[in-house]
Every structure is written in C-alpha cells, then in structure tokens.
C-alpha cells in the first residue's frame, strides 16, 4: 500500500516549474522496422514499421519527476530510453542541455552516459550474475575513470550502498546478485545508477517486479535520492497509483503519442482525455461497497504498425465524434462484433450480403466500395447498413461509429461508404489548468460537429 511521503511532492513540483530545461524532445519519432536484422531495424522506413514513438514534444525541467503512463505497447519505455539515447530516434531530436544527443553516435554518447542513467524493470536481470556487488556497483566509476585508486573506489561504493540503504555496506560488498532479494537488488541497481553522479534517471517500471511490501520503500528511497542528489526523474509506469504518488508531471501515452500531459494533481482531479478517464476508472477500488460499475475501454490496444487514422483511441472511445478518423476497418469491427452476438444462422445470413468482409481490414481507407455478395445488390447492402444505423441510434449507449459515416450510396454495382475526413488531434493547452490534451472534444476553437 502506498502512503503519502513526509515530503510534499507537490511542493517540489512547484519548485520544479522554475527549473531550467534539462531535456527537450521535439517531433520525436522512433519507428522499428518489422523486417530485417538488428541494423536494418533502426533504419526502417514508414512502411512496415512499428511506430513505437510517433511525434512527441516534451520538455523536462531540472528537478522534475515526469511520469510516462500507458498500457503495454504504448511506447512509454521506448520514449524513456530514447530520451537518454539508448534507442536511436528515427526522426526529431532530443537535446540534453542544448546538445542534440540524437545526432551523437554510440561513441559520442559514452561520456554523457554518466549524466543520463537508467534503472531497468527487472532487478534480477539487470545485475550481472557473475559479478559481485563491489564490482557491479562501482563499475561506472571504472568506466568513466572517476577514481584515482582502489581506496577511493571502495569509499565511493560504500557511500553509494549506504545511500540506498544497503547497510552495513561491508556485508553486501562481496555478495553476488543471487544472494540478494529483489528489493536489495533494486537498491543495488539504484546505487549503481547514482554512483557516477547523474542528473537524469530514467526509471523503467522500477517497482513492477517487486513485492508489494517493498514497492513503497523503493519509491520513497528514490524520492530521498532525488532530494539529496538533485536528480531529475523520468518514471515509466503503467501503475497510476504509484505515478500519482511519485510524479510532479504526468504524460499519458497511447500508441506512441502523448494524449494528455500536465501536472499530476490536475490530471488526476480532472482528466480531460477519454482515455485518461478510462484509465483512472480502471484503478480497482478496494472497498466492494464503494466499487462502481465502470466502463473500461472496449477492445484491445491496436497494432502499432497499423495505427488507426486520426485519433488512435477512436475505435475504443465511447464519445468519439466524426472527425476522430473513422475508416473501413472500424466498419469491419462493428460488423464482426454484431455477428458474434447474433445466432449463427442469422449471422451467416447477414454475412452473405458481403462478398468479402476481409477486404475492409486494410488500413487507411476513408472511403470504401463494398462488393455485394452473390445474389445481392448494392441496394441490399445499403439497406442493411441503414438499418444498422437506425438500430444504433435508438440503442444506449450510442455507437459512436455512425458519427463518422458521411454518405452511403450505390455506385458501379458497389455500395460506397464514405467517412468524414480524419483529423489528427493536436496537444492543446486547456486554459487555467496547465494540462495539454490531444482530443477533438477539448479543442478550444473550431470544435467538431457531432455528439
């Protein structure tokens, strides 16, 4: 169970606002090519590439704790790694103290690694099993030639171990990772991360592999280290509760993009994006008396190699509007979901109206010509679709898909369905809150029709 720390994070958050920008990302994109070996993977073009990070701008100020929150596959880890140059960006730039680190090669980055450290998710895997704690924790000192002799080395290692609460340090120096518990390993990893006096620490779900009882202690330790060593954190997590406890600023990510970005308290108190609302609603309520029926987002997170048009969240969004980027794929999903619920005979009868439902599965079709099945005319298909639309307009909650359909008409023996032109939502500031959100419903001017 997480409790509020003695020090007030919000107070530090206020102080962080005046901090100088430490890391700035502009138009950052990381696409992983789907084919080829390791080397061709990084140079993968837009075709056949997973868009792990897809156009992100953010500024990290000194002393800030930024939380990157999202489901698995949202690109939060990739973003965290790209911010410190561990993953190569395919477009855009990351600058650390004004220096563009995306332009630097592995060799050029090495001196900076001292300042930009990372804590990995799995403490059991991030320590070399064949290396004792003395060598493992102090290795950054050796790598960067920070100590003159063994005596100083030993002193620095002991100091780092004391800082992370592995006391007495002498007891741990000769131990191997296999001799330590998960919490102790993560402490050792933290000691290794701070020993070379870094400025920025990217923590990739540092507590998700730990026991519940240890999680709060590790987070508290990280806050203490931040206070003592003047650190800046990027905290990558899927756990909103820990993000609420730990972060000053929070960025909610969905399919490689930031959908909401602002001060933690504001985001939690008044979520702007439907996805954030859904995430917050998904936090389990321990008291069954107070548990409310919740509307979790339907479906799964889409394939990042073929993201939906427009707002990537629209297929799962309960309040989507016309401009959200409806396309042929969404029609297919709609039909298949309907047929799943119908009796098999009825479903196959309806299915026979369409020659090839799979043809709808291609991505990026803003207008689709549907071939009618054998013995049916395009008018039959149109009538069926209109019937569905009318049915949906009476049902509650309303199916948002039909907002996106502009016209349906027959043409050259095919039923043509045209969707509203998609528009990418841009991050825009909500006045008086400091929260930026990427949603058509929250756009200040020129808001879309519908609802």
């Amino acid at each position, binding site marked *: 169970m997480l409790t509020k720390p003695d020090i007030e994070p919000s107070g530090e958050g206020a102080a962080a606002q005046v901090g100088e920008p430490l890391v700035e990302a502009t138009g950052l994109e990381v696409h992983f090519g789907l084919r080829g070996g390791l*080397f061709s993977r990084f140079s993968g073009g837009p075709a056949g590439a997973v868009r792990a990070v897809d156009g992100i701008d953010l500024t990290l100020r000194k002393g800030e704790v930024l939380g990157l929150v999202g489901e698995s596959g949202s690109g939060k880890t990739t973003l965290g790694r790209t911010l410190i140059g*561990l993953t190569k960006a395919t477009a855009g730039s990351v600058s650390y103290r004004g220096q563009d680190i995306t332009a630097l090669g592995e060799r050029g980055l090495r001196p900076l690694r001292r300042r930009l450290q990372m804590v990995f998710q799995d403490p059991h*895997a991030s320590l070399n099993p064949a290396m004792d704690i003395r*060598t493992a924790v102090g290795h950054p000192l050796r790598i*960067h030639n920070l100590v003159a002799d063994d005596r100083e080395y*030993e002193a620095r290692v002991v100091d780092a171990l004391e800082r992370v609460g592995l006391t007495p340090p*002498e007891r741990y120096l*000769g131990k191997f990772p296999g001799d330590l518990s998960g919490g102790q390993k993560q402490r050792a*990893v933290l000691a*290794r991360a701070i020993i070379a006096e870094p400025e920025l620490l990217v923590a990739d779900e540092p507590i998700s592999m730990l026991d519940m009882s240890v999680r709060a202690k590790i987070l508290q330790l990280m806050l203490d280290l931040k206070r003592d060593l003047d650190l800046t954190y990027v905290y990558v997590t899927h756990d909103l509760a820990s993000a609420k406890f730990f972060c000053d600023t929070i960025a909610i990510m969905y399919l490689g993009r930031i959908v909401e970005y602002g001060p933690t308290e504001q985001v939690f108190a008044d979520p702007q994006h439907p996805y954030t609302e859904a995430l917050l609603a998904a936090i389990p309520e321990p008291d069954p008396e107070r548990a409310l029926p919740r509307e979790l987002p339907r479906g799964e997170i889409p394939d990042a190699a073929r993201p939906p048009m427009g707002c990537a969240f629209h297929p799962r969004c309960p309040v989507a509007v016309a401009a959200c980027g409806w396309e042929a794929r969404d029609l297919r999903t709609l039909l298949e979901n309907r047929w799943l619920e119908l009796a098999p005979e009825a479903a196959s009868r309806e299915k026979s109206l369409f020659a090839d439902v799979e043809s709808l599965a291609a991505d990026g079709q803003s207008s689709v010509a549907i071939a009618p099945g054998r013995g049916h005319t395009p008018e039959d298909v149109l009538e069926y679709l209109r019937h569905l639309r009318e049915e949906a307009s009476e049902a509650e909650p309303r199916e948002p898909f039909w907002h996106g359909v502009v016209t349906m008409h027959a043409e050259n023996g095919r039923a043509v369905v045209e969707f509203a032109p998609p528009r990418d939502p841009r991050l825009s500031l909500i006045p008086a809150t400091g929260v930026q959100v990427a949603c058509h419903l929250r756009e200040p001017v020129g808001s879309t029709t519908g609802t």
Partner: protein
Amino acid sequence: MATTTLPTGPIEPTVSASASRFGGLRRIVSAIREAHGVPKFMLWTGAVISALFVITALFAPLIAPYSFDTYKAHGHNFPKQGSPDGDHWFGTTVQSLDVLSRTIYGARTALEVMVLAVIFSLILGVLLGLLAGYFGGWLDRILVLVMDALFAFPYLLLAIVAGFVFSGISGGGVVTAALSITVVYIPQYFRVVRASALSAREATFVEAARAMGAKPSVVIRKYLFGNVIQSVPVITTMNAADAIGTLAGLGFLGLGIQPTEAAEWGYDLDRAIDDVNAGMWWTCLYPGLAMVIAILGFTLLGEGLNDVLNPTMRRRRIRKVLLPAHTARRTVTAPAQPDVPEGEAVK
C-alpha cells in the same frame, strides 16, 4: 556521539575480496560436492583415470625404464620383436624399442598435444564466438559461414589437411599436431560461445552496461565472458578426450608427429599391424589399451562434469525429511483411539 567509535574504512576487506575472486570456483566446487549417483561415479572415476594419465605423462622419464627411442642398453641391442619378459615387461617392437617405455612416453606426447590443442582452440574459439555473438552483422555471418564449412568436413580429413599445411610451415612436431587438431575444435567452442553470447547480449545487464557507458570491449570482458564461459569446461574435457583419438588417427596415417621427435600411440599401432598377423599381440595391445583408457578417463570426466555443472541436466538432491518416529505414530493412532492418553499412544 563522542563516545561512539565508528570503524574507519571497510571492515575485513581482504576476506571478502578473496571470496569474490573465487566466487565462480566456489560455485563449481559446491556443485561437485552435491553430485550423487551415476554422475558422481562418472566424475570421480574419470578424475582418477585422468589424474593417473597426467601423472604418468608428467613423470614419464622417471617411470619408464628406457627412453622412447632407446634400442640398446649396456652394450646389447634389445631383441627384435621380443615377447614380454623380465627385461621388457611389454616386449619390444620390430624396431627393437621397448613397448612399455614407448607407451609411457606416448602419454606424455598425448598430454602435450592435448593441452596445446585445447588451449589454442579455447582461446580462438571463445574469442571469435564472443565477437560474433556480441557484434553480429557481417562479422557474424562470415564467421558462421567459415565455421559451418569447417564443421561440414569429416574431422579427421580436416585434421589431415591442416596437418599438411602446418607441417609445411613448422615441421612435424608437437605444436604442428596440436595446431591441426585445433582447427577441428575451434568451431565447437565458437558455436557454443556464440549461442550463449547471442542470448547474453540481449540480457538486461548487458544493456545496463551499455547504459553506463561501457565500451564494447569492456562489455565483452566484464559482462559477457563470465556468463558465457560456464558452458566451456565441459566441451574442454570432451575435446581433450577426442584430441587423443584424433592425434592417434593422424599418427596412424603417418601424418602426425615424426617418430624421431616423440613416441606416439597411433604411430606405434600403425607399425604393429603386421605383427598382429604374426601372432605378436603385445606391440599393439599396450598402446591401444593406453589410448582407450586415456580417452575413457577424459570422457567420463567430461560427462560427469556436464551432469554436475550443467544447470539443465543437474538434479538437485532432495533429502527425504524424516519425522521423528513417535510423532509419526501418534498421528496414525490418535484418531483410532482418541481417549488413550498420549503416553500410551506413543508406545
């Protein structure tokens, strides 16, 4: 605060330092201690035979009655093809050489070639495997291609070809024989090490080392090597056994070590073929037997080590937990006779 005296500097640093240095060794020793059953038998039988072989080889000049190329003593030539007797326990060969001495000196040759071959192939194979596994890319492709090509050859044929090449360069000595055998074994080390390096490269701790700013050379030395090397000792003992066979094969074909340089079991066997037809069993029996025993010893040692050290093969011993006798009896009798006092039930 004033009364508290804190120790300055680390406590007992020397002890923990030495413990850390031999940490890996300690693990191996404890695994060997834990061995039981068939692996234990194989391990220890193999170890004893191998130790005897090594001792024989090291102290050959002290153990053997004559040198390997002695054909006369005290002014008398040795009998030609003499049967075993008091002077020559294992008889003499067609060249009037003492079979016992040649067999003992043969152990020495075998050990020399074996050690050199294993060291050469170990260094080259592990190094290439690490480089290929860590860097990948075209280097990996080329090395894998070459190694697979080497693998595709029948090993003896490869050793013969390599023997021809090297004997042209450095003559027919122990080093030449070792080098020709090395060529055969490099692919084995390469494959095993490359495979482990490939999987270790993806491990988080290697990534963490990169994130610390470690150079590739440092990553390979400090992070990959220690984790990759664990699979190597087993191959080494297997290869050691195999090297003896390959050396004998080369010698049998007359390609190995020149007879003037050292005694060699394979060469002796080759010379003894005609003797067998003439009913002289001793010239081929003893070198052959020595070879079989040496190979058996190292094979057993290798298999035993494999069973003991390989985590996927190793079965940890589960000790049976025996409850004290009276506790067990009480649990059985108590429900049947609930009213009987405890003292009665225990009886």
